[in-house]
């Protein structure tokens, strides 16, 4: 799709600055929610004891995922190069079908709407949606 404009990057960075202290909560809620609303995603976590929202594995992994998002914000000017290692991880080791990146992105946006209803304006929404889509694309880079 489209690449991020200077304005998009500005909006993403400004919004991230506001929300980054809550990154762990956002990640945990988004991941837990995804496993409930899109149960097919549970197939990737069959090795966890507890897949329910708020459980320890979900919280921990939500934090890991948001760590990746934070890294991406820092490397927003060249996501493909910046996320090469993460792309290799997802392509060769985890082998997550990239369609699922969209699903998780949607759940992150829902959580942002819940936690930051006044800040998550349509302008922020479009910039974040574009950013997460660009992130997903960079993650899929090494797949084939």
């Amino acid at each position, binding site marked *: 799709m489209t690449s991020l404009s200077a304005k998009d990057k500005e909006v993403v960075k400004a919004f991230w600055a506001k929300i980054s202290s809550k990154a762990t909560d956002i990640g945990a809620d988004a991941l837990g*929610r995804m496993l*409930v*609303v899109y149960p097919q995603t549970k197939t990737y976590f069959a090795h966890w004891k507890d897949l329910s929202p708020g459980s320890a594995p979900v919280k921990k992994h939500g934090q890991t995922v948001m760590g990746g998002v934070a890294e991406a914000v820092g490397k927003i000017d060249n996501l493909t190069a910046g996320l090469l290692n993460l792309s290799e991880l997802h392509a060769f080791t985890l082998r997550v079908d990239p369609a699922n990146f969209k699903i998780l992105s949607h759940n992150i946006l*829902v959580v942002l*709407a819940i936690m930051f209803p006044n800040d998550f*304006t*349509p302008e922020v*929404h*479009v910039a974040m949606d574009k950013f997460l889509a660009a992130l997903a694309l960079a993650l899929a880079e090494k797949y084939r």
Partner: protein
Amino acid sequence: MVTWTDFERATIQDIFSKIDYDIVGPGALSRCLIVYPWTQRYFGSFGNLYNAAAIASNPKVAAHGKVVLGGLEKALKNMDDIKQAYADLSVLHSETLQVDPDNFKLLADCLTIVVASQLGKDFTPEVHAAFAKFLAVVVAALRKQYH
């Protein structure tokens, strides 16, 4: 045939009783036009859609957002046969309005986000799942008469 659990039925009714129609309808449609600007192609007669501020304050967008939400009420009242209830609406969208049905999902996503921001913590994963299922059934019904 779609089967609804008691929880799902109750939850869907509850969501619609809690949301402010005047905020959710216009909010979802304007968000769709802002976040997915290609959807503006269907609204050439709506006047100024040049930027987010214009879209958000456009009275035709607001009015049409309410029409869309009214359409969802129809599904709410006919949950056991949404496909049948939506047959005419599906023909309308396919033959008259000629809307690419992939757009229905985009609007559904925006609706989910606006309802989530309205309900806050009450929009739990389970409530979210019920709403997502409801919207998926609505979208499938709207797609049904496309040939």
